[in-house]
């Protein structure tokens, strides 16, 4: 095994393990971490909510719902 090979594989293994750790963190531990960071929490949460809102808006713009079958036929459902 070359050193190059082990660096990428080692990182993958480490990130997967730490990711699983974060996903499995108990609510109590998350709360404890939140207490430790104090006021940085509000700005971080705000930043992340903005990011998610932007992405959601962009996603909705990109993937607008399909027109109804009537609209596909060039017919307006309101006329019925």
């Amino acid at each position: 095994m070359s050193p190059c090979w082990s660096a990428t594989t080692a990182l993958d293994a480490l990130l997967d393990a730490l990711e699983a750790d974060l996903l499995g963190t108990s609510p109590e531990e998350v709360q404890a971490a939140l207490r430790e960071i104090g006021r940085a929490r509000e700005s971080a949460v705000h930043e992340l909510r903005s990011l998610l809102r932007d992405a959601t808006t962009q996603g909705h713009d990109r993937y607008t719902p399909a027109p109804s079958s009537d609209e596909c036929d060039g017919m307006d459902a309101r006329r019925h």
Partner: protein
Amino acid sequence: MTQPVQRWKERVAGAVAPPPRDVGAALEALSDDDLLRLRALARLRARGLPGGVAWSDLLHEAVLRALEGTRHWPPGVPLLAFLAGIMRSLCDEQWRRRRRAGALPQPDDTTTATLAGTGTEMDPERVYAAMEALAAVDRLFVSDTAALKVIAGLTNGLGAEEIQRHYGLTAIEYDTTRRRMRRALLRHGLARTWP
């Protein structure tokens, strides 16, 4: 109705079919705790990316992919785990794209023959990024000897019992170390920069 029109309708309906679960509503419903976890996950995964790709870009793209619905969100899988999986795929995709774009030097025949496999090992830039990321994680826990032992074990693909045995940690020491590591990752998920 003519066949071409029918086919067009099927294509349109298929292209914009909503995802089986409402990702948008689930994102809205995330608690502050979940957001903290999600941010830490994105920052962690972005460590292995080429320079210039921010964790926020990675997360943004993952959310878009989730909303797109091209990736199936399996029942019973939490949203955070689903997004983490997408981010992992995006990282691989990013490196593949760079390789295809010719941004990375192609390996010579000898290297290819020796290192045939995933292909990741043949990207000098990716190897450099991996080494940088490993060093950053080490720096994060530089004052915690037990954590460094656990990290060494994890990078070698060892399980909990193997790490304890190999590095002489008791089960309690191992568990408390993992807890410290989780909290540090969460705290640093909020930090502007890693050490």
